């Protein structure tokens, strides 16, 4: 190879994102990186994501960012798709890491909850059973109990600055660290 040739154009990394049992708050916080998204888009291209409305992951994604825990069968399928197609998987936010607010139901039996929700006066209980509707899991799980997770980005939600720091570290090949002001406050 010719030593004087200009360096090869760096490939843009493919990033996929999704929200499972989350509130989209982490995605909203992601947008709080504001105009820095223009810098980001120089380095990455978005694959499957609510931002692109692409429905399935390309087989060669580099980074998958997942908000929310796993509460139903569809979440499991989406999570598996991400794991299969992304080199690096990031659990973003409290729900993805710990189950978060949706996991509050874990102290109750899902059958009791549904019986209370779908009880109709005088007509008993009819829980919707259309095959189109994904079944709920007995309990809500954090992502790492279902697939291998490579990085955890804590916060409820993590701030835009924290997400920016985390991603820029990652894209530059540094192990992401948040540190004071982004995760430590005392």
């Amino acid at each position, binding site marked *: 190879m010719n030593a004087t040739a200009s360096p090869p154009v760096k490939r843009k990394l493919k990033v996929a994102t999704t929200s499972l049992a989350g509130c989209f708050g982490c995605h909203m916080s992601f947008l709080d990186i504001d105009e820095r998204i223009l810098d980001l888009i120089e380095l990455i291209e978005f694959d499957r994501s609510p931002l692109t409305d692409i429905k399935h992951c390309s087989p060669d994604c580099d980074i998958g960012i997942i908000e929310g825990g796993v509460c139903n*069968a*569809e979440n*499991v*399928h989406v999570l*598996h*798709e991400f*794991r*299969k197609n992304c080199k690096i998987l990031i659990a973003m936010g409290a729900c993805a890491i710990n189950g978060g607010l949706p996991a509050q139901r874990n102290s109750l*039996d*899902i*059958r009791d909850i*549904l*019986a209370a929700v779908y009880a109709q006066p005088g007509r008993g209980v009819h*829980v*919707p*059973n259309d*095959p*189109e509707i*994904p*079944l*709920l*899991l*007995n*309990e809500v*799980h954090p992502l790492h*109990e*279902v*697939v*291998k997770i490579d990085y955890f980005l804590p916060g409820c939600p993590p701030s835009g600055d924290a997400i920016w720091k985390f991603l820029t570290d990652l894209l530059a090949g540094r192990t992401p660290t948040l540190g004071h002001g982004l995760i430590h406050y005392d």
Partner: protein
Amino acid sequence: MRTANSSGGDAGEKGAIEAVLSRHGHDAARLMQILREVQDDLGWLSPSVLTAIAEGTKLPRARVEGVAGFYHFFHTEALGAYRVLWSDNITDRMLGSVDLMARMCKKLWLKPGDVSEDGLVSVDTTSCTGMCDQGPAILVNYRPVTRLTADRVDTIVDLIRHKTPLDQWPAEYFAVEDNIRRKDALLSHDLAPGDALRALKSPQEVLDAVKASGLRGRGGAGFSTGQKWDFCRNAIGSGANPAHYVVCNADEGEPGTFKDRVLLSSYADLVFEGMTIAGYVIGAKTGLVYLRGEYRYLLEPLNAVLERRRAANLLGKSILGQIGFDFDVEIHMGAGAYICGEETALLESLEGKRGVPRKRPPFPVTSGYLGQPTAVNNVETLASAALIAAKGAAWYKGLGTAKSAGTKVLSISGDCARPGIYEYPYGVTVAQVLADCGARDTQACQIAGASGLCIAPSEFGRRIAFEDIPTGGSFMIFDNSRDIFEVARNFAHFFVDESCGFCTPCRVGTTLLANAMDKIHEGHGGEYDINDIWRIIRTLKVASHCGLGQTAGNCVSDTLQKFRPSYELRLNVRDFEPAFDLDKALSKMREVTGRDDPGAHFHIAHRKSKSGIGTKAGDPV
């Protein structure tokens, strides 16, 4: 025995509370003792009882409830007229406690942790009760019953069913043996009560002798006792009631340790004499023994020893006629919290608070009990100090090794012919100890308890000494038939139960570690989980507030290094597997919707997949 909280009604309850409160002068610092005595009378600590105690001690109610909720042996719900707690140390398990407890529960139609519908009995587990050489052991209403067998379990079930008071149970059930197998300088001492006191010279001379003897703390950390006393003696009390205090740490909760139980059963005079000498040196008038709740049965015998010593003028005013030499001892009961063995947590507990370790500095020697200069010493340290005062520093210094003077009392349990108490001069090899107690085919020793060191046969030439293997006395032996992974898993769960909950790294980290060990145990573990374990242990070590969290990963990290195959044989070949069965996780929804279509299942059981998880798990059809 305690009675169910039914008779007497409100008036009886109020009267009982008031009696206890006035016995303790409505002193908030005595909250632990107040709660224990009220619970003894009323069976449990109901919301109205807590309110009455809060009013009586002028404490915020939340503070009273916080303390009642902290300790395993206080209950804020009714747990039955008979409360059975199975000691759940690994040594109890090795003696068959799991099967025996299942037998008991089955016969009583109970699930562990539940109270029987008639409110008669509850059965649960508790951390090591210090009966490892005579297990499996239980506590029935906080009285120890040792050497459980299937026959004993059956008889106990009958006794409970017939509501037989504990006093009428066979006396041999409550027998606790000393099992002293090897005596050395301390256990073979020939001192009569008072001998060490009669040999006392000036406080400075006694202090110099303790320093010269090279005595170091026997709880495990090994700080110089003379230096501690010197710091404390030089510290100045402050506030309205300046004073110095001696505290005897008799909260031996480290799994596998029971030497303090024996010292307090059969050498109490020497221990109290050591406390008195400590008081003489540092200028304290008051000594406090913090006795672990599991040793509640020792309270009356120990109080009798104290009475005898007062009568002999070995405690009280002008001891042995020496004007100004006043010292007395009081025993405070703990209530089942391992963390209170840590000296600052112990002091918090003594002051009637939750056993949360303090920040150091200031150290207890300058700011201890009630903020006053306090010397906190282990039971064995104090007994040894009495020995030194009587027999001289030079003699003591001649025992043991250059850096570890004197002798160490070991509590030996597990796989050996003769478990019990062994006293050795420091420097004895592990191999020697194993030979003496009749251990065969030993594959590992866990020394210094769950937070200590797990050593493999290649290290059996190492020595018990501060410069090699320091220990508070716990020495558990595992032969070739044992599964070392299960040993580590047992300890991981111990720390979940005993973390005080104050700092997040320990509270969460101990649970994550136990979860990872459980996942491996259940056959879902992979290399990912091993890596995760290392990450958790690192965080525990660097980020925890006190020694409990910092050492909670030791056993897992030791066994991962030295007994790695016991983990690997459980691992899946795959890198990662879910922590639970995915298809089973849809079971309840299949039940309530009646669905059984392909979308109501994950198509491949995750265990059967060869090429990564969920490769064929498409969208619902």
